[in-house]
């Protein structure tokens, strides 16, 4: 378990949601004592950060029995936001259950895993909660001959283009575009390195979860980090525009050892307190009269489908 000590400031803007509560940990004193040994506490809270980056707390109470007699597990979410997708919580709670089985001599983690499988606990995206744009929509796009490659990130298909050799040049698009944005930059850049252009989750050829709350800033940063880890990119040159910068810069801060150069284009890393001037620019953009559109690919073809 990835035990952490959260700062009071961090906890203050989170909401604690009880997920599992025990009135009778004493029904199996051996398990209760094993939890006490493993956490080093009989009464109080221990925190851990899950594989999905969510913060959880295990709260133990003694009730005068000489070992933890009651326990509650809390999930800590952004204070006023819907909690993360349920399958992420399930996966995290299953990990926690496996940990309980590991520390308790009378339980076997393989039994927990089997029961979870038998009960079909959803720990990946359930059916019909993820959309995928059909391949036909991407057929014969102008100036875009690059074949896609795919990688699975937390059960979602993430598409990317990989071209050339050498140190990676990671090019991140923003809203509301996709890798196509960089089509005129790929070929010239191949002369200096290995160009990697992912489609962010929710864009282009990558999978598109239906639920709004799937698209948190935290999740995008995590997906991007997993993408970089899966391809094991080192000495990265980060090229980021718009959200590509907001996300890429955060990932750079989390794993600076993997990055060597940075090219930031019309982006930033707003940190809250100061009003961001980009907002007024955006307001002006929205107020401007719409320009006539050029003919594009067949729009009807490009509606996302339930192909996942």
């Amino acid at each position, binding site marked *: 378990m990835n035990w952490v000590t959260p700062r009071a400031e961090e906890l203050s803007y989170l909401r604690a949601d009880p997920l599992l509560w*025990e009135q009778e940990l004493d*029904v*199996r004193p051996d398990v209760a004592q094993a939890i006490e040994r493993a956490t080093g506490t009989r009464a109080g809270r221990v925190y851990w950060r899950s594989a999905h980056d969510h913060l959880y707390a295990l709260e133990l109470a003694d009730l005068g029995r000489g070992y933890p007699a009651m*326990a509650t597990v809390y999930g800590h979410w952004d204070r006023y936001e819907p909690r993360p997708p349920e399958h992420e919580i399930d996966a995290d709670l*299953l990990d*926690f259950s496996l940990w*309980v089985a590991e520390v308790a001599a009378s339980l076997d983690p393989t039994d927990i895993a089997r029961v979870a499988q038998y009960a079909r606990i959803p720990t990946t995206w359930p059916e019909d909660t993820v959309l995928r744009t059909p391949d036909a929509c991407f057929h014969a796009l102008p100036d875009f001959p690059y074949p896609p490659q795919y990688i699975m990130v937390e059960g979602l298909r993430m598409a990317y283009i990989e071209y050339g050799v050498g140190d990676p040049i990671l090019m991140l698009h923003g809203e509301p575009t996709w890798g196509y944005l960089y089509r005129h930059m790929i070929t010239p850049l191949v002369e200096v390195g290995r160009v990697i252009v992912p489609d962010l989750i929710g864009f282009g050829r990558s999978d598109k979860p239906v639920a709004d709350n799937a698209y948190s800033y935290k999740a995008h940063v995590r997906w991007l980090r997993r993408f970089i880890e899966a391809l094991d990119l080192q000495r990265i040159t980060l090229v980021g525009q718009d959200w590509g910068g907001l996300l890429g810069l955060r990932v750079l801060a989390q794993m600076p050892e993997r990055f060597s150069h940075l090219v930031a284009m019309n982006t930033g890393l707003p940190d809250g307190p100061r009003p961001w001037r980009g907002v007024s620019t955006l307001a002006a953009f929205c107020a401007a009269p719409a320009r006539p559109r050029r003919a594009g690919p067949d729009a009807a073809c490009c509606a996302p489908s339930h192909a996942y």
Partner: protein
Amino acid sequence: MLRPKPSWLQALFPWEHQALRVNGRTMAYLDEGPPEARPVLLLHGNPTWGFLYRDFLQPLTAAGYRIIVPDWVGAGYSDHPRLDAALTLAHHIADLVALMDHLQLRGFIIVGQDWGGPQGVGAALQRVERLAALVPMNTWLFTGAVGRFHASPRPWTTWHAPLIGQFFMKRHKVLSQHGPSVTSRRGLSAEEARAYHHVFDEPNADHVVLTWPRTIPLHEGDRGWADMQAIERRLPELAEVPILLLWASEDNVFPLSYAERLKALLPHAEGPVRFDNAAHFLQDDRGPDLVRATVEFLNRTVGATL
């Protein structure tokens, strides 16, 4: 006082519940048939409710008996307290004794399956002078495990381990929502499955589904151990009471070895009468056949008139 019965349930379960306050909680029960006739208490277990006995009501009342079908506190249409102390073996027994006293039952018959066995017999032993006959079905009245199910890690002890049990049973309702339908040999219709689980749909309504398994006394010191030992010790008091053992042969929870142990404790009991193509919820798998055997036994031993 009781939650209203949904309209889709009406065709499957047309009977109307009565309500009684027992030990501070509301208990729902059916009281059908002639009020002056000999009463038969039909007692369900985990994770079901009186719906389990729907095939029993018409034949038993037609045979002239009065039928009482309570939902245990924590289950069915009774209150669902999220409080361990209200859901112990002793508490369940006391709840049923309160119902027996309120209805002034005498010369009654206990029909019990699963937890309906120890809770029903536990209550009957408190009013043993009024007990006329006993029909245990796939249940037990003693401490320790005879079969492998309750001692094996999968699924039983794993499902009910601290915190892990909460994850499986409460967050995912694996037993309350799916128990009867995956166990059924006959195959439940979607409406029948829903009839079983709709009473546990509300968050936290299924606390009894955790407390019942955790009360199974396998080892000395387990919750329920002392109460079950008290029942087992008093079984010789039933030596004059007609007893019929009815047993589903395909029950993983209470296989025939449990019937043999009961037979050893109650040597004068008839049976066990085996019912094939029936699993743990045998009243659902073979209801009409079970009630026929029950009526035949009762008519022969005690009769419907008091």
